[in-house]
């Protein structure tokens, strides 16, 4: 615990030093604030436009969460089918790699053209980029069950349903969480990318992606920084939420989830 506090203190000191250097550099080099605003201005922008920022934060958060949750459910279902039907897996698995390699910025306009401009379309963009890591990891978890364990179940005349519920699904859980962790990092990127093309997803208000475009056009660089800051916080909160659930489900039995000493 002491070690953790120490780490947090170190991070805070580095952050404060960074802000100081930034402030000093902007003042000393006479950089115009529309190019690089000093951190004080960014702080003021956060304070004065907080309701607006908070709304954008939530809109993007909702879209990212909906897309991520959808990809968890959808990815797990596809993984279950892949685990059951090896021929289908061999046939379709290459396409899941395609899902990951197609640049999302290139297909986002298409998706928005087909699915409309709303929250649903943004969530759909998120869903698509989150899907591949979940399919890949969950499938791996479902099929990599130890042969001896499988034979143990067969010795007791276990049904396919029992093997799935009592063996394959629990065994795949740590693998699934690896996938979700990767996807949680890109979910926010997906939502913001979607919003860049979607415009405002609610009348009069937009998500972080939309607001970034708007602030850039208006040369509101201080607010632009505030939005970047909010996007970072959103990404972090997704990542840590997933980490929390991973810990909740795995800490009792799995080697990967050790609450203490893992940072050393």
């Amino acid at each position: 615990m002491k070690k953790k506090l120490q780490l947090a203190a170190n991070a805070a000191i580095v952050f404060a030093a960074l802000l100081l250097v930034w402030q000093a550099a902007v003042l000393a080099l006479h950089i115009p604030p529309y190019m690089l605003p000093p951190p004080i201005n960014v702080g003021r922008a956060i304070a004065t436009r907080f309701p607006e920022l908070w709304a954008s934060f939530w809109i993007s958060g909702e879209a990212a969460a909906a897309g991520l949750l959808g990809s968890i459910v959808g990815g797990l279902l596809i993984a279950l089918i892949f685990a059951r039907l090896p021929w289908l897996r061999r046939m379709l698995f290459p396409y899941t790699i395609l899902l990951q390699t197609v640049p999302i910025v290139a297909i986002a306009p298409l998706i928005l053209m087909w699915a409309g401009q709303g929250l649903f379309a943004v969530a759909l963009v998120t869903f698509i980029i989150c899907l591949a890591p979940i399919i890949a990891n969950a499938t791996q978890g479902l099929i990599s069950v130890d042969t001896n364990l499988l034979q143990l179940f067969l010795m007791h005349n276990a049904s396919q349903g029992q093997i799935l519920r009592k063996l394959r699904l629990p065994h795949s859980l740590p693998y699934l969480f690896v996938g979700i962790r990767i996807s949680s990092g890109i979910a926010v990127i997906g939502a913001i990318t979607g919003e860049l093309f979607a415009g405002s997803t609610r009348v009069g208000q937009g998500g972080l992606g939309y607001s970034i475009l708007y602030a850039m056009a208006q040369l509101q660089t201080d607010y632009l920084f505030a939005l970047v800051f909010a996007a970072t916080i959103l990404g972090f909160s997704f990542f840590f939420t997933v980490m929390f659930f991973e810990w909740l489900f795995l800490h009792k039995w799995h080697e990967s989830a050790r609450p203490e000493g893992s940072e050393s």
Partner: protein
Amino acid sequence: MSTIPEILFRDVTKRFRAADPPVLQGIDLTIERGEFVTLLGPSGCGKSTMLKLVAGLEPITSGQIQVNGLEPKNARRLVSFVFQEATLLPWRNVERNVALALELEARSREDALQTTGRLLELVGLTDVAQSYPRALSGGQKMRVSIARALATKPRLLLMDEPFAALDEINRDRMNEEILRLREAGNWTVLFVTHSVAEAVFLSSRVVILSPHPGRIAHTISIDLPYPRTANLRETVEFDTLVNQASRLLREAHRA
């Protein structure tokens, strides 16, 4: 007494692929109810495969195997398998690992809990009933595995080098324990090991296999009375049998 043998091998041959040389060839072996038979041999002689055949986990290529007069697959209700590794489910605590086999056979929860409690007491694991496998030592894990195997009250126990991963002291202790448990359970055991001393200590009969392909080279009756205790290892009779078995094993390996 019924005249149906517990396990019957009749001219059994096993190949994993049609083009491969056989792993086992011409195996004839009859094991009566209540015997403790150990298959002894170097690695690769097919002794683990023999267990898998009896469990119905692998098909035979030719010949016949019967377990209590039944096809192996249909006799699984009577049989429990103890694997070389403890093969516990890491997400279940000790108690629920032992209860697994009972759950799979759809026993009532009450029955399962009662049986589990009794078994944990029997193998001396009551204190760690709520622990997860990762917190257990190798010996404790193996005890859980054995308790789980005994939960369904099998008549026949198939044990595939269950103590190979333990150090010598723990292995000896587990050997004594398994004999003690058998006094109460009276199961038939087909046991696989490559330790001569373990084979002699446990068995009523030792079957020595020779490799490439696996065949039965010798059979030794171990006429030492049960119950056997740790002192047995210091007797001349025990030494003589170990030496005899070692010699036959070396010969089988050379042949």
